[in-house]
């Protein structure tokens, strides 16, 4: 856990499993600032999960305060890694402030932004 401005958490990742409901499902909840300082930690968490067999990965950005191109790079890399294993990536991003960043790069055209983890998982299991 890095701390920065006024001892505030700079970035952290929390993991939870969706099994048994979704056997190869994992949620990674990102907290703090997803910038060049925080992104490497999320990238390595994604790599670890895919290597361990995750095929439905939910990236929950609800607790992200700042998202920039470094964080978007991790999202793109996660999508590539999961698709390479016939898996899928789902994003949770309820905040219009962050949605705006996806939209400014047209990434909202290839990735749906869900309101919460349940919505993200529901859509995935319907498929």
């Amino acid at each position, binding site marked *: 856990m*890095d701390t*920065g*401005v006024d001892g*505030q958490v*700079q970035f952290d990742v929390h993991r939870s499993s969706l099994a048994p409901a979704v056997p190869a499902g994992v949620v990674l909840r990102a907290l703090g*600032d997803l*910038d*060049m*300082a925080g992104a490497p930690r999320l990238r390595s968490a994604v790599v670890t999960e895919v290597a361990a067999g995750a095929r439905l990965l939910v990236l929950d950005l609800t607790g992200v305060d*700042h998202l*920039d*191109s*470094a964080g*978007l*790079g*991790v999202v*793109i*890399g996660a*999508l*590539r890694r999961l*698709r390479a294993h016939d898996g899928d990536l789902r994003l949770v991003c309820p905040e219009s*402030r962050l949605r*705006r*960043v996806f939209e*400014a*790069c*047209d*990434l909202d*055209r*290839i990735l749906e932004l869900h309101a919460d983890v349940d919505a993200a998982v529901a859509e995935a299991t319907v498929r």
Partner: protein
Amino acid sequence: MTRRRGRTTSGIELAIPPRPEYLQLVRAVVGAAAGTGPTGRTPPDPGRVADLRLVVSEAVTNAMEAQAAVGAPERILVRCRPEEGRIVVEIVDRGPGFDPDAVPDLPPVTDHERLDHESGLGLSLMDRLADGAVVETGPDGTLVRLTVDHS
């Protein structure tokens, strides 16, 4: 490239080590400086302050990467100047410079190969979210001047 080291007469100037853990501080300072002014001045829209924080974060990230590429330990300068109805921020690095026209475009977002590019979004975010983005660059470094209107 113009490099001015003198004290300008208004606004703030921040110098930070070229390390990622200082990005959060830069955003906090730029956001704060944008909202700081004499009583009675209309503050910028919160959405525009968010845009400003984002584009400055992108420019400083590039500055850090540029200096890391040549091992330049100098601090990066961030100058923030309030103007009538807008904020101007300049980011100055001592990296090797670059040719903005030679930066390749990313594949369209719907292309399969788009996913092979985890980087390369910074300059286009600056172009889209700032109201002005000017780059002065040369072998001694780069100055990026970003302008964001208050509303």
